[in-house]
């Protein structure tokens, strides 16, 4: 009750242990614990909102010696989004997994994944980030391998080897930092770091490792196969949370700790990679035959947008403009999290009902499942960035930031990205208008469609209309914006 940060990490861990020890009641425990953890994450956000960034030094050792858990506005909002997506997907998974032994294998790993995400978002120590990244990678791979077909296995093996490589390269960067500064805590490091060669080399290594983990353009080839072949709730968590969380570390490093070291050229490079990801990802999504493959490629594209924000934020002067651009980045990340998980969950319903998710012959299913098609439409709107969604405001600010910082070249990229996104979304929706009989009941897979609907509504209505509060929450509770 007093320090929610510890509970947010320990509750899913304990839940995972209990589900392993008591498999028969696994799903009840999973549901109960994810709801309680969600409540605690809300308490944490409330504390950050009132008291500014929170710190919890584990074991009463000061940050230099021991490890500190830290939560500022960025990590708290991402945490709440992660827990909301996680809880909704847990309700969905409860109905999705029918046969007993899969249920039994799913729950402990699933809760371990949540532990890893929460631990990573709150960690304030470089080596601790490495351990949480490993825990995240391993649990994600184990969950991807849950669907026992060859494609899933091959995808998860490649995902594991790439993930391990990414973590090791990240660890090499941490080793260099420890060589030079002898510090592992992020906040102390932020005070000590100067723009010298060691810091640049270490940052390149760490960013290379994280770029591999968050599937930025040149290193994205493992993502579509892994996310498309994993079971629906798992691929929802993968796309909405796992990839975004390793991007969160890049943000934490580039904008908070190493912002003295960043050169405009390096920011531009990561922006260009992001732009390439946007174009290439959307183009591949347009040509994907299966719905889940389309969603996976669109994840690669949407993450590209988040990377485009980095040169913009570093290019803008300190103060209000930079804070607005940064908050727009967070809003886009949150909206994408909700929209993408809703899309994957509805793809899961379609696959369950029709036995396949090939887009070409989707017509019958999309008419028989009107609510699922509506959810796909809503998440499509949020992915394109059309008005009712939070990403519309984020894209508006993205364009405004690129005009303010006179980096014009991002505007055509965002334009083509949005048009391609519209193309592949409406390609899917077009099938709902084929000839034939009218739909039966609106809601026929209730226990699976309701969680997906709530997530989609979060992306469009809640973040679209209610996001006014987010702007001042982030600008005055972030550790680093404008000094």
């Amino acid at each position, binding site marked *: 009750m007093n320090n929610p940060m510890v509970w947010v990490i320990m509750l899913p861990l304990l839940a995972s242990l209990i589900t392993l020890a008591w498999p028969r009641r696994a799903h009840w425990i999973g549901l109960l614990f994810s709801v309680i953890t969600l409540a605690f994450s809300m308490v944490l956000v409330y504390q950050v909102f009132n008291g500014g960034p929170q710190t919890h030094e584990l074991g009463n050792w000061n940050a230099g010696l021991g490890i500190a858990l830290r939560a500022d506005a960025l990590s708290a909002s991402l945490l709440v989004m992660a827990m909301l997506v996680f809880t909704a997907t847990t309700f969905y998974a409860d109905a999705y997994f029918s046969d007993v032994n899969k249920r039994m294998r799913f729950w402990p790993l699933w809760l371990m994944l949540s532990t890893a995400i929460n631990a990573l978002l709150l960690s304030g120590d470089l080596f601790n980030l490495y351990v949480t990244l490993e825990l995240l990678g391993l649990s994600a*791979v184990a969950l991807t391998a849950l669907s026992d077909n060859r494609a899933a*296995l091959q995808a998860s093996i490649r995902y594991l080897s790439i993930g391990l490589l990414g973590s090791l390269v990240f660890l090499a960067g941490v080793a260099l930092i420890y*060589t030079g500064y002898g510090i592992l805590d992020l906040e102390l490091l932020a005070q000590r770091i100067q723009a010298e060669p060691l810091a640049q080399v270490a940052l390149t290594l760490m960013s290379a490792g994280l770029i591999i983990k968050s599937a930025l353009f040149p290193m994205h080839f493992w993502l579509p196969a892994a996310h498309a072949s994993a079971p629906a709730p798992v691929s929802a968590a993968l796309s909405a949370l796992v990839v975004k969380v390793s991007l969160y570390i890049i943000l934490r490093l580039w904008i908070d700790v190493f912002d003295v070291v960043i050169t405009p050229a390096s920011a531009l490079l990561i922006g260009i990679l992001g732009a390439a990801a946007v174009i290439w990802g959307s183009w591949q999504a347009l040509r994907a035959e299966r719905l889940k493959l389309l969603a996976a490629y669109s994840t690669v594209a949407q993450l590209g947008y988040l990377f485009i924000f980095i040169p913009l934020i570093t290019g803008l002067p300190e103060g209000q403009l930079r804070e607005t651009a940064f908050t727009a980045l967070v809003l886009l990340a949150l909206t994408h999290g909700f929209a993408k998980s809703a899309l994957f969950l509805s793809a899961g319903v379609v696959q369950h009902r029709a036995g396949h998710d090939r887009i070409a012959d989707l017509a019958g299913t999309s008419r028989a499942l009107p609510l699922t098609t509506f959810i796909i439409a809503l998440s499509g709107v949020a992915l394109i960035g059309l008005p009712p969604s939070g990403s519309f405001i984020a894209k508006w600010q993205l364009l405004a930031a690129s005009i303010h910082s006179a980096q014009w070249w991002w505007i055509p990229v965002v334009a083509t990205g949005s048009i391609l996104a519209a193309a592949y979304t409406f390609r899917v929706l077009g099938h709902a208008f084929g000839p034939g009989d009218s739909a039966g009941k609106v809601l026929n897979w209730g226990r699976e469609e309701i969680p997906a609907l709530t997530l989609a509504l979060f992306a469009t209505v809640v973040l679209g209309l209610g996001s006014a509060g987010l702007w001042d929450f982030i600008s005055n509770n972030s550790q680093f914006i404008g000094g």
Partner: protein
Amino acid sequence: MISEQLLFALCGIGIFSIGLRATLIHQQLLSRLLALNVCGAGVFLIFIAIAYRGETQIADPVPHALVLTGIVVAVSAMAMALALRHKLKDLNDE
């Protein structure tokens, strides 16, 4: 005369790059797995070379703890990779 720290650190970097090169080149899982572990060993060697503080003083315990954690994480990752490989072999045989 260069210090032992730098000597062993450079050796660690050498092992790291050998491992990295092999991870990127090999396609079969097992060779890639071995390469990954070698790459990990390289990073651990850098850590411990940094921790070494000459004959007389006790070495810096923090990297030792980190590398111990690293070794255990590496072996668990290997166990998982081998289980995945075993499963893929079964599926291929069917």
